Every structure is written in structure tokens, then in C-alpha cells.
């Protein structure tokens, strides 16, 4: 069980997050939506230990995860807003390097890389240099990197941004398949696409979770309409 409890964060005097709390169960793909500047990326950075909250806790299996960051990061996969990769490396080399850096044993690196590549559909470009790939393929490589060691929590920041429809569908499907073994928290503005693959939507507004919209069992259009309404309501 992954729990975010009363998280608050401010840059100097500007309060970005006031009191954010939610729970994500294993197998869930939770999507956080909100306007630009609502604090989605900041929240994910806090969850990825890239920023310190003013107050609040991140609990994992009942323990304060931020108190033992190294242990927490072993179970974490993070994909930032823009794919930041080593452009000079081939995809395979990059993934192997990252797996080794994350502490995977030599024997299992190949298997892990193979699995992640298969799941993210980058097996066909394993020998290609990253600089020659399209943005969509780079995002897939970044996603493969984030899920290399089968993390228990996967944080994906605005990961459908800049992708075409078919690529968004493929990435969404991948995200859904990852949710089989991890708690996925994703942010983005592509509500229609995200609605197909997410189990729940959290609307972030005014530094709080303004509303929670379940998506499981509902068709994407209905969910998208509810989320849009919730966003409008929060704005009003």
C-alpha cells in the first residue's frame, strides 16, 4: 500500500501544495490532473525524493518512505516530463548501464533489459543510437528505464505529452500492463487517453485533491467528461 499523507510544499512564500493525501493500491493506475501550475510535477518530484515537502508523509507498507530514501528509491521508478537520456548511447547500452547503476547483478541485467524492452516495444531499436530516435521512441526508452527493475511504485510525469494518437495508445497500454505489478501514479493533460488506462483520477486544484473520480468499469468518454467537469468546477 502506497499512501501520501498531508503533503504540503511551498517555494519561498508561494504555497504550491497545501494538504495532499491519497492512497494507491498495488495494481492501480492513478492519474493526477490539474491546470498548469497546479503542482502535479512538484508532487511527483516530492514522491521521487527530488524535493522536500514542508510537511506530510509518504508511507509505504506503513513506513515513512522519505525517512529512508535509499531503501525507498530501490522500489521506485521515475520518468520525468522530458526524456533525459544519453544521446550518444545505443538503446541497449543505455538500458544496461542504467540497470547496472541501479544495482542489478550482472547475470540478471540482460534479462531485465530484455523484459523492459519487450514491454515498452523498443526491442526493434536496441542497437540504434538514442539521438536517432523520435520523441515517442525516446519516451518509450525512458519508460523502459523507469521500469527496469520492476519498481513497486512508478511515477510518470506528463508522459503522453507530445505524442501522436497511436503512440499515446501504445504508451497507455504499456502503462496499464505495468500496473499489474506496480502502483502507478501518472500526471498529464490528455484526459481522454488517460481515461482508457487509469483506474482513478485525482483532480489537483488549489494545492488540494479537489475531487476523486473512479474510472474502473466506466467507458473512457464518460470518465473524461466527469474529469473535465470536475476540473471546471475546481477552477470555478
Amino acid at each position, binding site marked *: 500500500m502506497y499512501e501520501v499523507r498531508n503533503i*504540503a510544499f511551498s517555494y519561498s512564500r508561494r504555497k504550491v501544495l497545501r494538504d495532499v493525501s491519497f492512497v494507491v493500491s498495488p495494481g492501480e493506475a492513478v492519474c493526477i490532473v490539474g491546470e498548469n501550475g497546479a503542482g502535479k510535477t512538484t508532487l511527483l518530484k516530492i514522491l521521487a525524493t527530488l524535493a*522536500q515537502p514542508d510537511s506530510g508523509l509518504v508511507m509505504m507498507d506503513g513506513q515513512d518512505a522519505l525517512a529512508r530514501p535509499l531503501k525507498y528509491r530501490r522500489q521506485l521508478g521515475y520518468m520525468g516530463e522530458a526524456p533525459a537520456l*544519453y544521446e550518444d548511447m545505443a538503446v541497449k547500452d543505455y538500458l544496461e548501464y542504467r540497470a547496472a547503476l541501479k544495482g542489478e547483478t550482472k547475470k540478471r541485467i540482460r534479462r531485465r533489459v530484455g523484459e523492459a524492452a519487450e514491454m515498452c516495444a523498443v526491442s526493434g531499436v536496441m542497437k540504434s543510437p538514442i539521438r536517432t530516435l523520435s520523441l515517442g521512441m525516446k519516451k518509450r526508452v525512458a519508460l523502459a528505464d523507469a521500469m527496469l527493475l520492476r519498481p513497486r511504485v512508478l511515477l510518470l510525469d506528463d508522459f503522453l505529452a507530445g505524442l501522436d494518437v497511436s503512440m499515446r495508445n501504445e504508451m497507455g497500454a504499456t502503462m496499464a500492463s505495468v500496473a499489474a505489478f506496480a502502483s502507478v501514479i501518472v500526471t498529464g493533460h490528455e484526459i481522454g487517453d488517460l481515461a482508457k488506462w487509469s483506474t482513478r483520477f485525482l483532480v489537483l486544484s488549489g494545492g488540494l485533491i479537489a475531487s476523486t473520480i473512479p474510472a474502473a468499469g466506466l467507458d473512457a468518454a464518460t470518465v473524461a467528461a466527469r474529469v473535465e467537469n470536475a476540473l471546471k468546477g475546481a477552477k470555478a
Partner: protein
Amino acid sequence: MNAAIITWRRTVGMAKSLFSTALAMAVFFAGAGVSFAFALEMAEGGETPLAVVWASAVSPVLPVLAALLAMDSWSDERRSGRIESLLTIAVRERELTFGKFLGVFTLAMGAVLAFLVSSLAMLSFMAPGALANQTALSFVPGLAALMLQGALWCAVSVFASAAFRHAAAAALTSITLTVLAPRGLWFALMAWAPQGRMAFGEMPLDANVFDLASGIVSTETVLTYLTLTAFALFVSSKFVAAVRLVGRGARALRFSTGVAVALATALAVAAIALFHRTDTTLELPLAQHSGQSFSARTHGILADVRGEIHITAFLSRKDARFRQVGHFLRSFAREAESAGGARLVLRFVDPRWDVAAAERLVRDGAHEDSLVFERGSRKAFVPLAGGFDERLCASAILRVAVPPKRGVVYWTNGHGECSFRAYEPWGMSDIARNVAHYGYRNEPLDLADGEDVPDDCALVVVAGAKSDFSRAEAMRLDSYLRKGGRLLALLSASDAPGIASLLSGWGVRMENAPLKGARTLSGTDVIVSEFSDHPVCEPLKGAQVILEKPLSFTPSAAVDVAGADRVEYTPLARVGDVCVAAAAERGVGTGDDLSLRPTRIIAVGDAAFVMNGQLKMRGNANRDFFLNAVAYLSGTDAMTEPGTEASRLVSGMDRAGRVRFVLVSALAFPALLFVAMAAFVAVGRRRQ
């Protein structure tokens, strides 16, 4: 540690695919090439070993290489946003920082090693003489010194890279911290603090490399560098971690980070202070290469003398010899300390900066470019012109402690000889002063006044007589020689025939044989580097004597008469088959008659070879040749100890050769290297 090794591999691997690495290498090779060529010229004829010259030349360029190699190490990660993906994995920042440091350090040391190989290869083609007596082992201390200093520069450069998003800003900061700031502070100290100026020799960073490369290992130096390297890496990792310290919630972390950095600073300062107090200096056994191996005689003198002796180096800091003098004096002081005798207190007076101290020295009789030895009111001066060595300094110490008394060197006059009292370029005051340093007294000898050569005469010097000796004068000289006298004749083509006939009677015949294939510096002089095993020139092997249009010598009919009249002729120095300096000795075959003092004559085919003007030329052993001749003729040991002179650095390059060396080492080779590396990078990218 696993993450550090992976990051190290990645840093090295990435460098292979960057044009900036090729540029950094080319800049380093060009800078180090210029520096080495310049240092080689400055060290020509000196006693600084090639390995030390090389390490000292590379040292100032190393921070630039480290800055260029490390500038992207963290700043690129920050700029591209990859730092976030690095900081969200279960690895400590210090492991990543250490890995990047190792990568940059490996590349920098690889470049240093490649520069060593390339510069030695170029020397082996263009100046093989410079590589005489050199072994690969002699370069190990220099490499170790550069590794020690390079580690610090790399750590500082990684720190600068961690502090800035832009690589150029990181490189500039790094160069400021490692080059501009320390050297600027040094210049400020030199400009505004007379006491500091006089207490310090050369810039500590340069002195450290010079000493370590010479095999003098100070625990303080080594531990200080290691401590500063560790400190720089610690601060770097804190700067990397600072990426997380955004927002108000990180206040506590920011405070604890600040405290940690402050504590580390205090700890580093305390450790360095402790190292300073508990300093121990070890001297590696690099005797024949360090140039600072002190003879048993010197050790004995230093052990016997008691009390405090002040040594002042009275020369400009801009002088090319300053570094060597500083290093020599530090080694000399350490030797005295280990001998347990006199305590040597060093001081450095720059005539341009320390005007008051310089005035006092001049009032005391010191000349610029000299070492002044003082004990109470007793003073001795050792001029630095033409080289100096431990023997001269030991003699100076002996003089201020117990002044020795030797015989008188009589210089003939009245025939247009060079005056030993003349300070002009054509005078011989300089060499006469050297002779006086060894305890001899210089006196003029006028054979025309009817008196014989005095009994206290150690030897007679005929320094280029232009008019003929009268018959009476020649007879008096001959009579002196027959009683076991000693004659040093410096001859030139314009010399009158009187002295030539006198010499002929003693086994040495003057000629004017053409010198075929002789090497020259200016076109009119001749480089003499072939010496026999005679005591006068045996220590000079490997060195060069420069003679101006020299006369030649052959044995005359007087050579090899039996019994006590037997004359032995020995060529001292040759140019090809032509002998340009010769020695003759009569009475060497007398067997058991030890009471018989043999007559000794040395003839040199150039009357001007120890004139003041000639001695100012660097890279020759004229002074040593003359002093050894004086020592041999007066019956004392050679003043230049065997083994010391062989360690002189003689590249044998003439002006054209030097220009060629600079062009190849600083321009052609770096350009070629850049093209090759850039092509390698381009081909690699195209293949991908």
C-alpha cells in the same frame, strides 16, 4: 562503490565520443609542448634532471586539462535534466561524484602519459643527448607528483561542474580556482608582503611538483593534496545533492548541509595544520638523476659545521634559474638537517622587489645572481652565472666556517693577456672570483721585472698573450716549470710564437688544423663534447665546452723521453680527430721517487673561453673545465665531482633545432592529434 565504477566507465566511454575531448587533449598537448620546450631551453646546461624539467613543465597546464575534461561531467547532467533520473535511483551522490572524478582523472592521466611518451619520442629524434642517462624509472616520481596534483585539479573541476549548469562557466570557475586564484594570491603576496616574499622561494604549487619529481617526498605535501582532494569531492557531492534542496521544507536539510561543509572545512584546515607540524621528508634514492645527491665531502662539511648559517638567494624571481636554486637550497637545508650539523636558514631576495635587502647585500659586496652565505660577520658569495653545484656551496659554507688557505694563482701580464681584474666581457674577473672561492689568491705576475715565479705559486696562468715573451721571461717560466711548476696556457691564433716554442719544449705542439664537421651554436664557435678520461675532463662527459675558433694540438718531439724527463702527452678534448685541449706532464715515470713534483701543463686552444662574456652563455661547461684544470694543476681534487657533471641536461639542440622542436611538439603534433581524435569521433558517430 559499484555505482562509482559504473559511472567511471561511463565517463571515460562518453569522452571517446565527444569533440570537446579531442579539443581538450589538443589544447593540453599544445600548452604542455610549449611549456616543455621553454623549460628545456631554460634548463639547458643546468643540473635539473630531464624528468623534473618535464614534470614541472606539464604541471601548470594540468589544471586547464582537468577543467576542460570535467566541465561537462555534472553540468551537462544538470542542463539536460538527467540529474533527476540519476538522483531517483538508490545510489548516493558521493558514489556518482567519485565515479565522475575517477573518469576525469583517468582521462587526464592518460593524456599526461601520452604526452610523456610523445615528448620523449620527439626528443629521441631531435635531441637524443637530452635522453642520456635517463631511464623510464626516473620519470616515475614526476608522474606520481602530477597524479597527486592532477587528482586535486580534477576534484576541483568536478566540483565546479557540479556547481554550474553551463560547462563554460564550470571550466572558467575551475581555472579560476586552480590557476588564477592561487597564482594571483601568490603575486599579491609577492607584491605586498616583503617578509613572505623573502621567506618563500618559488610558488608552492610549482615547488611541490619540482620536489616530488626530484624524489623528495614530504608527508605534509602528499597528505595536504589528498586531504584537499577528498574535501573537494565531499563538497562536490553536497552540491549535487543540493538539487533536492528546493522549497521551504528543505530548510533543515540546507542547514545541515551547510554545517557539514563548514565542519569538513574546519577538519581539512586542522588536518593540514597537523600535517605541517608533523612533516617528515623522505628522499627517494634517485641519486644520479635528481641532481641533489650530495657527496660524502659535502655531508661531512655540513655535519662538522655548527651553528646557524644564513643563505640568501640574491636573484630575480623571473630568472630561469630561480626554481632550480630554490629547490637546490631546500634540498641543501634538508641535507644539513639530516647531517645534524649547521642549521641553514634560507632567504630569497629579489633585487627588483626587496630593494632595502638588496642594497644591504650589495653594500656587503654581493652581486646580483649569487648566493650569499653568512655566519656572523663572515660572508661568502657564490655566483650563479654558468651554473653552481653543491661543491661550490659546501666550499662557501666551509669558508664562512673555517676559511681554507691554498696557494696563489699567478696571472702573467705585460703581453696583452686578459686581465683577471677586468669586469668587462673580455675580462676574466668572473672565473678569477670562482678560483678565489676555492681558497686561492689571484695575483698578477710580471716576469719582466726580473723576479722569478714566487715559491707560493700554485700555478701560472697565461691567458692569451698577444705579444711575445722576452727570452728572459721565457727562461724564467721554463725554469719554474723545470722545478715542477704548473702552467695553464690559454692560447689563440693571434698569440705570439714565444709561448708556442716554450710549450713545444714541454711536449705540446700548436697547430691550426681545420675542424671538419664540427657542431656550432653561432657559426664561429665550436661545440666540444668529446673528452678523454683525464682527471680534468672525465667529470665533464656528457657536457659541452664552447670554444671560439680553437687552435689544435699535437704531441711534439719532446714527448716520451725516458726516466725523470719522460713527458706524457694527453689530449683532453677533441673535435673529431683534432685535439683542442691537451695536457703534458713530466716526471710521471720516476717510479719510486715520490718526492719529485711532476711538472704539469695544460693548453687550451682558445684564449677567450673563460672570459666574462663567454661564461654568461648558458649550456657550456667552460667554467668547470677551467676550474678542474686549476685543481689538477695545483694538485687538489677536481672541483667538479665525477657523476655530478654527467647529470647536466644537455639537449645539444641548436637554435634551428629548438624552433623545430617547438613547432613539432606544440603545433604539428597537437594539430595531428586533434584531427585524428576528431576523425575517430566523427567515424564513430557515422557508424551509429
